[in-house]
């Protein structure tokens, strides 16, 4: 599903650079991406999502080599195939919780909400414990609740690939378990591939594989 080869990325004017020789994730596999802060986990996730483009090397998702696509094509690809759960939630503060969930459909090519999606959204909110806040705006709910809403939005399109950047960072252990269960259950139901960044060792066992980014960088001789 995901294949990264000879990847090199550096932020302009920054000493940080990420070099990865090879990373592969099979279709339907769930991977916990770990590593110390600042080692490039979020950068790698952004490269896989096509938000950033490597200076060298390729990122392939499914049959698509993201580096070959123009920005607008990458955006279109992301909208159609990837469910992104950002670290900082990235919810729109002028929409309600429920409306935020439906944004990926609103901004898609036809802008229509497919039949059954509103029920699916209600189900996700219910299962993640924020159904009572469906009509509130994000500023009216807690950080942890926003985190759960961001997770629901990442899952609403039933994407082929779920990329989650520390989605449990603002949750207590009980809710961490709930949200990871929700994500993995949904992924299993629809056959999605999951890559999730986490700092919680107790969650690692829930994934098929744990990848330490330091190991990848070491292998690449970084």
């Amino acid at each position, binding site marked *: 599903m995901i294949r990264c080869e000879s990847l090199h990325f550096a932020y302009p004017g920054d000493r940080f650079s990420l070099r990865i020789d090879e990373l592969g994730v099979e279709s339907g596999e769930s991977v916990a991406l770990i590593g110390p802060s600042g080692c490039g986990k979020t950068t790698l996730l952004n490269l896989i999502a096509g938000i950033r483009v490597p200076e060298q090397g390729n990122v392939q998702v499914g049959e698509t080599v993201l580096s070959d696509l123009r920005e607008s094509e990458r955006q279109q690809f992301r909208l159609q195939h990837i469910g992104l759960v950002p670290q900082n939630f990235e919810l729109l503060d002028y*929409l309600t919780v429920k409306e935020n969930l439906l944004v990926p459909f609103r901004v898609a090519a036809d*802008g229509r909400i497919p039949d059954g999606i509103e029920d699916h959204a209600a189900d996700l909110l219910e299962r993640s414990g924020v159904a009572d806040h469906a009509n509130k705006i994000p500023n009216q709910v807690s950080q942890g609740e926003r985190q759960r809403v961001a997770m629901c939005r990442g899952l609403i399109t039933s994407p082929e690939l779920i990329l989650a950047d520390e989605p449990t960072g603002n949750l207590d252990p009980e809710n961490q378990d709930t949200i990871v269960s929700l994500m993995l259950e949904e992924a299993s139901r629809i056959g999605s591939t999951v890559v999730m960044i986490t700092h919680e060792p107790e969650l690692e066992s829930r994934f098929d594989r744990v990848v330490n980014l330091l190991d990848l960088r070491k292998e690449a001789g970084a």
Partner: protein
Amino acid sequence: MNWRGIFYLGSRYLARNRAKTILLISAFTLVWLLPAAIALVVSEVEEKLRSRAADTSLVLGHAGSALELTFNALYFTKPGIAAFPRSEADELAQSELASIIPLYVRYTAGDHRIVGTTLDYFFFRKLAYQAGRAPVRPGECVVGAVVAEKNGISVGDAIISSPETLFDIAGVYPLKMTVCGILEPTGSPDDSAILTDLKTTWIIEGLGHGHDDAESADKDQLIAQEDDGVIRLNASIVEYNEITPENIDSFHFHGEDGGFPITAAIVTPHGVKEQALLKGRFVNSDLRQLIMPTEEMDELFATVFAVQRVVLWLLVAVGIGTLAIGAMVFILSHRLRNEEFQHLRHLGVSSGTLRGLIAFEGAFVLLSSPVLAGLGLLALAAVTPTIVERFFG
């Protein structure tokens, strides 16, 4: 680009930030509306005033402000202008150069002006009756359509003139007048006027009065009986405040009609030559003036338009300032939303859609303001005639 999504996100953003949106739209709406509204109102006032002036060839009055004389004779305002003897208007009529209609516009009944004139005025202004008839004796009056409607007046009802000096026992006393006719609406100052004959207005002024028969007065009402037959009575004699068929014979004037005051006379020359001759008579007069209302309106509106131009330039400057501030608010607001746009990009929203979103929000504010201004102008156009009529009769 997904227009449905753009409309959805844009409208939701504007609705959530409705205070800012309403403020911007209101400010821009005023920028469009104010100059247009001023032009509309001025145009309506001009049309109203000019049409009345165009129907009136000349106005004779006491020397002084020609504009005040015009307003007194045509729009029944400025009641404080100096009066002059009716005989002077009669002399002009006798010259056979023009028809003369005297006017005495000084007193009120409530909010409505009492206009003393002759029956010729009704023909001159082509006034028709929706009920009743013209006044035929002192104490009768005809009311305009607005007066009748506002006060629920019917033929046979009474109207009492307003006392001018409440605490002055020698001042103007109220006179109860009988409504003998109601005029059809004309859209002119006549609608808001109470029209009566000159004698009635002179009675209101105290120049004429009626009271109990002096010769049958009690001894204690008698002050003195002069040798020449003049009887002097004290204040206990009953004075009438209403003219009725029973007491009308007791009403009398102390003096000659010709010496009693009028504030203006409408002068309609019989021809161009006569008009030139009449104007020539008053060119060098220090006491009287013969004016052309249309010329006064030209002069008035030349001043009004000059002021209007200045106001419009000021409004343009204020408008440019408002647009600049609005643009700044818009730009700053979009800078603050950079993070939000970044979030949408991460989700997969294209740059074209984001540009469309920004354009939609800007266009909504910019385009809705002229539309609202247009609607406001339509509403104003509908009520302006009523407002203008309220102020200019």
